[in-house]
């Protein structure tokens, strides 16, 4: 039986990344979790790359996946640019700090913290079942000033939805914290964006998912430059991941209006729990 040595079989890993990223792209858009939160723990735990490069690729993967889906979401009203402006500004400033600190910390610390964070995300997605569309949201003064309102047609229920947001200052502060975590761990942090937009600010779930993607694209653009400047972005890891996630998220954006969100969310929770447990055990030195 022929033996394939590691040096000549280098291409197997980029190929595996492409396939993985394609499937992550589909489920990330539908579940509104961002590709990075699945990519970083899975690739960081089961692939041979150092976490520095995985986080760099995770940031640009989440960025590229959301960029591909964002134009159609903006046109359909499921993403709102005016809502993105204040949230992305707070998030991107904090994401720069997160990226700088994340690259300065020992890898075991980052791996352990990543495992804890991903397990917490899985638990959050499992526990928070109240996501939906809250009617009659009262806009606050800041929200009115920033024109944080919009309208879209919900094809699943065939209704026209007018929406507004509330608790604008709190929402902006929340996105600062989310941006910090995203920059530190190389995630899109859609898992936190969606509840912050939906539960905290009162945006309809579909608007929260669509707008979360656009926020990620701006926040990750800032943090990505820290990783690029440090040389922590390897094209052989990043490009197959980007190409895979773009193709997958394009398909995911089309399926968003038709697929049952609950079934996809359950799959994501299981994958997150497994990947988070692996990252935690690796960080603690229990299962290298």
């Amino acid at each position, binding site marked *: 039986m022929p033996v394939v040595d590691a040096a000549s079989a*280098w291409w197997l890993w980029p190929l595996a990344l492409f396939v993985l990223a394609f499937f992550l792209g589909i489920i990330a858009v539908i579940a509104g979790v961002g590709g990075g939160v699945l990519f970083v723990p899975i690739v960081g735990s089961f692939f041979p790359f*150092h976490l*520095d490069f995985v986080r760099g690729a995770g940031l640009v993967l989440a960025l590229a996946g959301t960029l591909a889906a964002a134009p159609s979401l903006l046109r359909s009203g499921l993403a709102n640019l005016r809502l993105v402006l204040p949230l992305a500004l707070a998030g991107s400033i904090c994401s720069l700090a997160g990226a700088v600190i994340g690259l300065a910390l020992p890898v075991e610390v980052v791996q352990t913290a990543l495992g804890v964070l991903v397990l917490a995300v899985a638990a959050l997605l499992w526990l928070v079942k109240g996501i939906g569309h809250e009617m009659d949201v009262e806009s606050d003064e800041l929200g009115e000033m*920033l024109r944080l309102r919009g309208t879209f047609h919900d094809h699943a229920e065939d209704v026209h939805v007018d929406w507004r947001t509330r608790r604008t200052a709190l929402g902006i502060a929340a996105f600062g914290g989310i941006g910090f975590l995203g920059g530190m761990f190389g995630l899109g942090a859609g898992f936190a964006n969606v509840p912050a937009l939906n539960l905290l600010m009162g945006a309809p779930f579909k608007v929260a998912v669509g707008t979360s993607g656009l926020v990620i694209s701006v926040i*990750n*653009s800032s943090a990505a430059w820290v990783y690029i400047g440090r040389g922590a972005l390897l*094209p052989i890891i990043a490009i197959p991941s980007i190409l895979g996630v773009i193709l997958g998220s394009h398909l995911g954006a089309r399926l968003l209006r038709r697929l049952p969100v609950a079934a996809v969310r359950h799959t994501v929770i299981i994958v997150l729990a497994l990947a988070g447990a692996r990252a935690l055990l690796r960080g603690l030195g229990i299962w290298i």
Partner: protein
Amino acid sequence: MDLKRDPQDIYARWLGAGAWLAFALSLLALFLYAGGVLAPFVPLERLPQLWGLPVERFREQTGAPTDWDWIGYLRYGDYVGLAAVCLFAVLSLVCYLRVLPAFLRHGERLQAALVAAQIVVLLAAASHLIPGAR
């Protein structure tokens, strides 16, 4: 006409065109790099021994550049690939620059100020001026 369009429509149009351009160039870059058309700075066969190292040790072992120094390495396949990836990171900046005058035309000064502030943050990040980012 862009003059009458809502900034959100302009953003969507530019983002859509830019994302597909970056996608196509990434595909081309991967072909040039992994297909062996352009010689890489770090040989592909060496990567399995290097990609498991922390970034500082990777740079020590390979002499890979930091900051914007990689621009001088664009004759190598891996840095053509990096340039393609950078296009994704620069797209939001381009779109923000494009919608800034649109918000001003619509009389939305607060939104225009947020856009201008975001442009400053993105430029600071891209120029590696953030303390500790180097």
